């Protein structure tokens, strides 16, 4: 009876614990220390080691229940679990294959939809380019929404939402009589995808966007989607270039095929494939995401700071003579995206470090640039009046100003140890609907407001 080996008992218990996805090594270490303290205490009180071990294990509780509690607290890990649990399933291969089949069919549908206008005689002529630009997101995003409706089993309510949103998208992209090369049309081209991306967010989260941590999951998804999409685009570009080159060697020019079939259909289909990759290959990208944010945060900070210093030294104001303000906003949006993504991929458990200070500097310099742009636009408007571009830029700058100020404030408090990382996350996820609302306003209200110029 006394042959109970305490050490092997503990290591078995530990092995079971570390099999849980929601529990990291540091958690195992913390719980093991607890278990050993308990065992030692009970042995001191006169119990045999096997009795002490049994009681201590019982007091720690059912490890399944405990690990579920860990997963609730560390929702980022929970997200990981959702993905991985599908893979530990015995039916893994069939489930995976079926999902891949669905993705492939949807990608083909997206690619085909892109070619449908050709049947109606709308092809890639110069006068039709604006049509394709306005509608590009409508060719692929509804299929992506379908994928998530299928995957999250949203059924009718999801389909109704999709139908309503797609109908509204088609309506606002095509019914307005935009004047050729007008600025309201360009604004629609830029803002409609953003509004539709929110639809993806709603079906992606599955619970209609209610919880903050699900929204953060969607931010994480968006960032990783962007990375995968860029990777696929680069690979696709190289492959297309080689193919065209090889055919030209044997005297055939297939440039037209690349331009009218391979590139547009590939671009539409890749939206589905990239999303599927994010969903299926979580583990691979997870190692990349923090690395990428760590590489680009310092670079962006450097770029913004040198921009600010150059402006200060040369005394050049922001040139609003040309209508480049929207492009300027896009750069700030990129910074915001980087910050959001960095926040979503950060382990909220770790204490504030130098990287958080760097993030704060990035946010603060973006805030300064934003303020300068805002002053320039306001001056321009009071001098020359309203144009759609200026109003859009004004609105975007104000929205970014509020968002960046909030982020800076919560980062500051977090670094000072006055509040947890969760309040920063909450600020950023609560603010997401504001961006969407603005995008919808620009698409729906701006064209008629400014007479479709």
């Amino acid at each position, binding site marked *: 009876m006394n042959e109970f080996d305490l050490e092997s008992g503990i290591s078995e218990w530990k092995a079971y614990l570390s099999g849980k996805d929601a529990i990291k090594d540091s958690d195992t*270490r*913390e*719980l093991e220390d607890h278990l050993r303290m308990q065992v030692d205490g009970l042995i001191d009180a006169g119990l045999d080691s096997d009795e002490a071990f049994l009681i201590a294990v019982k007091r*720690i509780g059912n*490890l399944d*229940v405990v690990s579920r509690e860990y997963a609730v*607290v560390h929702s980022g890990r929970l997200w990981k679990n959702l993905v991985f649990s599908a893979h530990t399933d015995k039916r893994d291969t069939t489930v995976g294959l079926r999902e891949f089949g669905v993705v492939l069919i949807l990608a083909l549908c997206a690619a085909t939809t892109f070619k449908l206008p050709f049947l109606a005689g709308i092809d890639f002529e110069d006068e039709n380019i604006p049509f394709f630009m306005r509608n590009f997101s409508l060719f692929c995003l509804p299929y992506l929404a379908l994928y998530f409706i299928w995957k999250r089993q949203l059924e009718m309510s999801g389909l109704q939402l999709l139908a309503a949103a797609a109908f509204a998208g088609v309506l606002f992209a095509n019914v307005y009589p935009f004047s050729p090369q007008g600025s309201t049309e360009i604004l629609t081209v830029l803002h409609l995808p953003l509004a539709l991306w929110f639809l993806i967010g709603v079906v992606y989260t599955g619970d209609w966007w209610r919880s903050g941590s699900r929204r953060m999951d969607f931010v994480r998804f968006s960032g990783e989607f962007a990375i995968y999409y860029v990777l696929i685009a680069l690979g696709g570009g190289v492959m297309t270039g080689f193919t065209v080159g090889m055919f030209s060697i044997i005297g055939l020019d297939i440039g037209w095929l690349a331009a009218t079939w391979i590139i547009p259909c590939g671009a539409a289909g890749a939206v589905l494939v990239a999303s599927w990759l994010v969903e299926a290959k979580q583990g691979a990208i997870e190692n990349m995401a923090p690395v990428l944010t760590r590489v680009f945060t310092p670079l962006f900070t450097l770029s913004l700071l040198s921009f600010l210093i150059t402006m200060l030294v040369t005394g050049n104001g922001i040139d609003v003579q040309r209508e480049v303000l929207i492009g300027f906003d896009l750069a700030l949006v990129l910074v915001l995206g980087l910050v959001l993504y960095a926040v979503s991929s950060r382990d909220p458990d770790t*204490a504030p470090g130098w990287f958080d200070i760097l993030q704060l500097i990035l946010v603060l310099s973006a805030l300064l640039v934003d303020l300068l742009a805002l002053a320039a636009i306001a001056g321009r408007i009071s001098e020359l009046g309203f144009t759609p571009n200026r109003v859009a830029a004004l609105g975007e700058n104000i929205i970014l100003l509020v968002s960046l100020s909030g982020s800076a404030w919560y980062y500051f408090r977090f670094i000072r140890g006055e*509040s947890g990382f969760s*309040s920063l996350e909450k600020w950023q996820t609560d603010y997401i609907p504001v961006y969407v609302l603005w995008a919808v306003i620009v698409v729906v209200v701006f064209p008629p407001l400014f007479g479709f110029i």
Partner: protein
Amino acid sequence: MNLSKDLMAASSTPLVLGILAEGESYGYQIVKRVGELSGGALKWTDGMMYPLLHRLEHQGHLKANWRTAQTGRRRKYYQITEHGLKTLKVQYRQWEIINDALSGVWRDLSERSQWSNPDGLQAG
């Protein structure tokens, strides 16, 4: 006695923050302290203490650091922050209100003797 899940959830934060306001501590000791404070009546599942500590850490109520304990093992020590102290003060006031109201209810009940002093319930 086992508390209901809701009551546990509501009371665990002020209890843990209050214990840590006495000074830095670690999981095992906090669990023991909870037992002492309640005279052994409050029994938590020990393992649940850690997710709770981690949540309080996320929210900035606590900060933690790993150090080597006398046993030679690495141990995570928790410390209350300014923010945590503020939250504790707010919770203290809230619990006082509930405490007062409940004491009133218990007193009235025993005065009207509609309730012949159930087990362990002392009036006043």
